[in-house]
């Protein structure tokens, strides 16, 4: 009797262990070695998959190729990112770029060109030397191509492709992408040179506060004094240095995928890169406007390297005083009007 009871206890115990294993094994089969839900498991429940997708999670399968990232099946954060670059970014870009263009056209129609009120004196003074202009133009030409090829990534498909067709758009986009990648290097070098070259003249000071209070001579016909760079130019300088560094760093994270960050970091880098880039383009439109048609005599500073003494007196009186004290009052007269600075 006792032997029968012992045997019965053994059989019952064995069945309990087998039952526990039978319950536990399918549960472990539903999970990948890294703990994520295995969607190919025979007993996976829909609720488990839905739970796994919450709060930035993902569902991964298993692949035999070297790129294990391709095992990722569903990553809801990717849909958020797609929504950003397909919809949100286009709105931000359109508002920033078109908004700035509308403001500039309206400003030009209302205010007109900022004239050289005292007229040309015929005496010139060196504003930017040859190296400064070289760095400026290298950075500027790269920026224009980077901006056009970058805007093509965001706006090319809806705006350009319907006009030129899929084949031409594909070829143009491929070459634009090459130009975007390769010209980023001279652009980044240019931004670094600009940082070093002009930082001394671009530290904000009390004169800038007064310049801003008086509208910088852009609004109205006042001529607040300024050193070599006024507050508006200082703003452009820091936009170029900080914005340029941000787009370069975020751009190189994208150019070298998965070297320094995972997919979430790359999505963040693309978001930062795109938003700063469209704002950068808008700011540079303002810079190009005031440096060309917006102000009489301004383009000569970067075009030829010299400006008329009256122009310097009206827009950078404190700088002119410094230059006169440094070189002597007659130095500017030695430069005839059409002589470049180099």
């Amino acid at each position, binding site marked *: 009797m006792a032997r029968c009871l012992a045997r019965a206890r053994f059989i019952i115990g064995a069945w309990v262990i087998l039952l526990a294993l039978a319950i536990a094994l399918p549960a472990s089969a539903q999970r990948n070695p890294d703990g994520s839900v295995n969607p190919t498991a025979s007993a996976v429940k829909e609720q488990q998959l839905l739970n796994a997708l919450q709060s930035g999670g993902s569902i991964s399968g298993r692949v*035999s*190729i*070297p*790129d294990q990232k*391709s095992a990722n099946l569903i990553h809801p954060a990717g849909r958020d990112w797609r929504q950003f670059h397909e919809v949100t970014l286009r709105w931000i870009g359109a508002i920033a770029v078109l908004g700035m263009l509308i403001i500039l056209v309206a400003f030009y129609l209302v205010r007109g060109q900022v004239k050289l009120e005292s007229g040309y004196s015929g005496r010139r003074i060196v504003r930017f030397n*040859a190296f400064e*202009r*070289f*760095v*400026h*133009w*290298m950075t500027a*030409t*790269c920026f224009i191509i980077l901006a056009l090829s970058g805007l093509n990534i965001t706006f090319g498909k809806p705006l350009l492709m319907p006009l030129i067709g899929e084949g031409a758009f594909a070829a143009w986009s491929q070459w634009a992408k*090459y*130009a975007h*990648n*390769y*010209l*980023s*290097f*001279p*652009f980044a*070098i240019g931004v670094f040179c600009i940082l070093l070259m002009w930082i001394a003249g671009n530290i904000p000071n009390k004169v800038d506060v007064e310049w801003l209070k008086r509208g910088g001579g852009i609004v109205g016909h006042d001529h607040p004094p300024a050193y070599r760079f006024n507050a508006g130019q200082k703003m452009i300088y820091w936009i170029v240095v900080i914005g340029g560094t941000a787009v370069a760093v975020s751009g190189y994270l994208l*150019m*070298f995928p998965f070297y320094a960050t995972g997919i979430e970091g790359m999505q963040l880098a693309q978001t930062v890169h795109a938003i700063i880039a469209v704002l950068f383009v808008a700011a540079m439109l303002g810079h190009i406007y005031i440096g060309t048609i917006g102000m009489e005599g301004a383009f000569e500073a970067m075009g030829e*390297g010299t400006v008329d003494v009256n122009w310097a007196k009206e827009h950078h009186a404190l700088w002119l005083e410094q230059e006169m004290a440094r070189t002597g009052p007659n130095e500017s007269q030695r430069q005839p009007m059409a002589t*470049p600075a*180099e």
Partner: protein
Amino acid sequence: MKTFLLACVAAIVIATAAGFALNAVQKPAEQAYSTTGVRL
């Protein structure tokens, strides 16, 4: 004008050098993400 042209040439030279450098360190996606069993 001379400075502008020189700046354009410098940008092209640096970009071309960067292109060669990038091609030396990066592989096309079809090579980077395929096994040795794949014949391209």
